[in-house]
């Protein structure tokens, strides 16, 4: 029998600040949304929409994913995180870069400050990618999950570099084609390359683990990885150099890849021993359901359907919203309540296990609050989608209010967890032990 090492978990100060920043960014995002109802009537290249998208993608989603990943990488790859110092520095650059970038987009200040913001973000992504690759190199065995995670980090870095080039182009105007051409590239590499691959890679390991299920056949996951990356690479080359009419085919490859992942989850979940699906997992399944919407819309926006320009603009906006406010936000909200209570519990109670009666991670947060925020989230999302599609500012405002309520409830729950203090514990007496 092979002996194993002890815990690979990183220190709490590496992980927890990411959760705090992300929660506050979620509140900021919702408040900005309240003041942006007028921005959804036109083109997506709008200062307020650019601000919203980047606060959602960087301050909220990427920030939380960074933090969660530093905790989960050792679980998925079965080794220690390569460097906690790199993780802390990456946090600083990501936080500073996000705040600066949001400020610049909101005020449409496209001078040196936005260059600083973009450089700061690229530095953060570089450090993160180095950390992920070096950690993966320490892994005792290479798995398909490692493929997904490492590749997603590389796509993130590429997304950041394309973003930096676009920002430099604001003042130097050296790119041969108009800005929105590269924006499509930047957005799709970020959405499919970073968020989608990362979420699939981590989800493929964690969902079976949380359900006490056993994944036996990884063929679908392998094909999922190949198809999504192939779709993305073909799209990039075509978009930059060839301009063919094959975009729906590339989108189709990505869609089939995602469907294969969903089938993997479905087949694995049939073997589960846990049938008590908690609120965090319910929200995760809602997120996977919400993923179907952008999958349909990516085919629509990549096909030349000759739709009226106004309708096409709305569909583009709904597509973006369905990714950032739909799938990504839903899965983050759900997984926050699967990962954060456990992390807090581990740091607070690990020395008391077996000696004192300790609470369980699920006892550390308010379930009613979480149920409420799951409902306000879903209502807010549906109202926002409807409002944007109908170009109705009142309905968009109602959706923004739903999101604001969700973000406040979420942040209260997160800070309750972060500030959790160990209560007085009752010692065990072990039957007739002389304890």
């Amino acid at each position, binding site marked *: 029998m092979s002996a194993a090492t002890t815990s690979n978990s990183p220190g709490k100060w590496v992980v927890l600040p990411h959760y705090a920043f992300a929660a506050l960014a979620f509140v900021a995002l919702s408040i900005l949304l309240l003041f942006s109802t007028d921005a959804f009537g036109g083109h997506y290249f709008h200062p307020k929409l650019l601000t919203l998208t980047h606060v959602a993608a960087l301050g909220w989603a990427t920030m939380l994913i960074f933090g969660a990943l530093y905790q989960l990488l050792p679980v998925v790859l079965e080794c220690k995180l390569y460097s906690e110092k790199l993780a802390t520095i990456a946090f600083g650059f990501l936080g500073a870069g996000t705040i600066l970038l949001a400020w610049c987009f909101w005020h449409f200040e496209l001078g040196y400050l936005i260059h600083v913001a973009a450089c700061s973000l690229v530095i953060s992504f570089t450090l993160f990618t180095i950390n992920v690759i070096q950690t993966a190199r320490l892994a005792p065995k290479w798995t398909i999950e490692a493929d997904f995670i490492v590749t997603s980090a590389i796509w993130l870095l590429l997304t950041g570099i394309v973003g930096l080039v676009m920002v430099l182009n604001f003042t130097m105007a050296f790119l041969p084609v108009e800005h929105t051409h590269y924006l499509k590239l930047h957005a799709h590499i970020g959405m499919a390359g970073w968020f989608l691959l990362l979420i699939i890679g981590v989800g493929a390991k964690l969902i079976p*683990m949380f359900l006490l299920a056993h994944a036996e056949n990884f063929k679908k996951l392998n094909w999922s990885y190949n198809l999504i990356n192939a779709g993305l690479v073909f799209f990039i080359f075509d978009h930059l150099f060839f301009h063919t009419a094959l975009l729906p085919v590339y989108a189709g490859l990505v869609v089939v890849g995602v469907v294969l992942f969903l089938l993997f989850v479905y087949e694995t979940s049939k073997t589960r021993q846990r049938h008590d699906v908690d609120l965090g997992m319910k929200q995760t399944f809602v997120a996977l359901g919400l993923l179907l919407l952008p999958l349909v819309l990516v085919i629509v926006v990549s096909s030349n359907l000759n739709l009226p320009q106004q309708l096409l603009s709305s569909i583009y906006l709904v597509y973006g919203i369905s990714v950032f406010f739909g799938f990504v936000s839903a899965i983050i909200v759900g997984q926050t309540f699967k990962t954060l209570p*456990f992390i807090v519990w581990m740091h607070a109670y690990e020395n008391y296990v077996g000696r004192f009666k300790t609470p369980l991670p699920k006892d550390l947060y308010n379930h009613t609050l979480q149920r409420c925020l799951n409902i306000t989230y879903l209502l807010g999302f549906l109202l926002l989608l409807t409002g944007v599609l109908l170009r109705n500012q009142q309905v968009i405002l109602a959706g923004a209010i739903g999101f604001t309520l969700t973000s406040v409830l979420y942040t209260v729950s997160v800070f309750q967890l972060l500030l959790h203090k160990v209560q007085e514990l009752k010692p065990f007496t072990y039957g007739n032990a002389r304890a």
Partner: protein
Amino acid sequence: METHVPEDFGNEVFETLKYIIDPEVGINIVDLGLVYEVSLDGDTLEVNLTLTTPGCPMSGTIVNATEQILLKRFPNLDVKVNLVWSPPWSTEMITAEGMRQLEAKN
């Protein structure tokens, strides 16, 4: 679960280890099937246990808790806890009592 100890003593060890609860599942490590082997060699009590997944962040916590709890329960013995991965844990290793507890949660 394998034991190389007198039956009564083995039962005492398993009953003691049932105080350690897996925080995610909410079931003790014995009924979850994580304790593979208990043996007594002179004054040394040796326990081989595993985790639901090799990367589990609970590894240090569960190993330390097992050592602490057994030292407290059997103060005259030396305790050695080994974390092992072979055979890999699977849901078939959950005991009938563990399955009953899982079903009761549904």
